């Protein structure tokens, strides 16, 4: 009785390891501000998408409230940092408050509505998320309304902070990269995201992962072998909400700004859905691939199209089609092609290779 490993699985795991290595050394490999922004966003979205995949991919729960939990964590940290000042205690209290609010709301929504049909549950989460978005805009004395909140973060993450100094007293450099607070902030994002991702990986590798998949496949069968489906679904909804909330806190600390557009908007919810579908549902590795592809496309597709439009300037029609302003159109085309050629998502389809 041996463990399974198909060549498709090995290929996916190798690609994920490569992505992890690139993210680990990103500040040294891509030495510009935008690249670091992209790398940090990828780290946070991997966690956010993986936590959403616990719901939709593993358990078959469709929720539209994931950005709401992300927002709770972000606003928790933002409000605490704003009120208490830029200390670690504010980050911790903000994170804890975000997680607690997320758990209370997730438990309430879960227990009240996870018994009903999936479509009703999805609608309830959509309504709850809409209420949270409206509240964030209306309660401007706490949330800053549409403008959001800016705040300072712990001194360690200030760009002016010198992690190490050279003999002249200036900030030391390693491979040309300044060892300053920005670098510390990136590694805070990287390692906290890594820890959360490994936690979720542990959850799905444990027997609990099999229970969730069993519930997804056939609820009645899962109950008939002794699993209370509503309890498990509520638990995984809470776990997913708590992780999304922590991802929100990390994002708030990284951005030093929290507003409805960066955390609660339905555009982010759609991004998460696309990342899950592109990467592949029901596998944590899919979150990594989906987040990388979408975030990189969002940041660089426009540049790539600009270059392509320039290169094809002498060909009729093509420069117009490749106009950088049409990047969303091409992103849509790429998405349709990916779904067509990788019906189970990129990792899901590749991992199927060699499996029987």
């Amino acid at each position, binding site marked *: *009785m041996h*463990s*399974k490993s198909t060549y498709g699985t090995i290929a996916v795991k190798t690609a994920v390891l490569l992505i992890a290595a690139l993210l680990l050394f990103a500040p040294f490999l891509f030495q510009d501000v935008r690249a670091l922004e992209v790398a940090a966003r990828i780290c946070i979205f991997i966690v956010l998408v993986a936590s959403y995949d616990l719901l939709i991919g593993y358990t078959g729960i469709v929720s539209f409230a994931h950005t709401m939990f992300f927002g709770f964590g972000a606003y928790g940290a933002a409000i605490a940092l704003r009120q208490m000042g830029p200390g670690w205690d504010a980050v911790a209290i903000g994170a804890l408050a975000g997680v607690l609010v997320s758990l209370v709301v997730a438990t309430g929504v879960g227990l009240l509505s996870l018994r009903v049909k999936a479509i009703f549950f999805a609608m309830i989460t959509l309504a709850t998320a809409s209420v949270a978005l409206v509240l964030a805009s209306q309660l401007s004395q706490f949330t800053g309304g549409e403008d959001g909140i800016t705040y300072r973060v712990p001194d360690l993450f200030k760009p002016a902070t010198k992690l190490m100094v050279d003999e002249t007293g200036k900030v030391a450099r390693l491979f040309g990269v300044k060892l300053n607070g920005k670098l510390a902030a990136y590694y805070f994002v990287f390692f906290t995201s890594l820890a959360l991702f490994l936690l979720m990986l542990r959850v799905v590798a444990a027997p609990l992962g099999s229970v969730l*998949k069993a519930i997804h496949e056939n609820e*009645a*069968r899962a109950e*008939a*072998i*002794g699993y209370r*489906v509503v309890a498990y679904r509520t638990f995984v909804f809470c776990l997913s909400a708590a992780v999304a909330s922590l991802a929100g806190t990390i994002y708030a600390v990284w951005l030093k700004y929290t507003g409805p557009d960066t955390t609660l908007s339905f555009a982010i919810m759609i991004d998460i859905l696309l990342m899950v579908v592109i990467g592949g549902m029901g596998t944590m590795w899919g979150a990594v691939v989906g987040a990388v592809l979408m975030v990189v496309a969002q940041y660089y597709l426009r540049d790539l199209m600009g270059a392509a439009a320039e290169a094809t300037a002498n060909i009729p029609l093509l420069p117009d089609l490749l106009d950088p302003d049409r990047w969303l159109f091409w992103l849509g085309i790429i998405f349709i092609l990916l779904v067509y050629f990788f019906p189970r998502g990129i990792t899901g389809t590749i991992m199927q290779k060699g499996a029987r």
Partner: protein
Amino acid sequence: MSLLTLNQMKTDIGQYAVLHDVNLEVPEGGVFVLLGRNGAGKTTTLRSIMRLWKPAPGSVRFDGQDITGLHTADIARLGIAYVPENMGIFGNLTVEENLILATAKGHFDAARLKRITTLFPALERFWTKQAWSLSGGQKQMLSVARAIVEPRRLILIDEPTKGLAPAIVAAMAEAFTEISREATLLLVEQNFHFARSIGRDMAVIDDGRVVHSGSMAEFAADKPLQDRLLGLS
């Protein structure tokens, strides 16, 4: 004393009354076979015992305990396993994951696992394969194996021979005889020859009512009764 007693069980599915008044006593030990024509209410009886359908009035007693209002998961945890029709396995899980799911502590008891792989050697061969890739017979073996991966008092099995090759049916008969040494089997079956070969006690259900019960040996010897209740020729 009976291990399982159904008293005036009635089950409606939507607007249809499927079980009208089921009274049944399943004694401890051996194989009890529930026979009947298509649509008579056999599967509904098993599903109602597990509370996968909610029976309205009436009561279900297991080992002297009233389990009528219990949740399906709690009924399962009392020691009742259910092997549904059409190989109720989880296709997206491996053979190992399917089995471990049914263990109480998340790991196998070595002796029981050995017994399972002795009864169903194919499962060991396909241990790490996803269950959807198994053949029909192997899926049925997995489904039965999942029911015995933990000690059970009662195993409800719904039409285990449906669509299986004769060689697999013979293997199933041997396995059920072996399993019935430690657990009571309540078997729903349309294949009368198979049922006769392993059943000790039996009942016939027709139009949502138990219309006959007794020993299998007596029923097997009474051709006119078989013809009348099952339409066998």
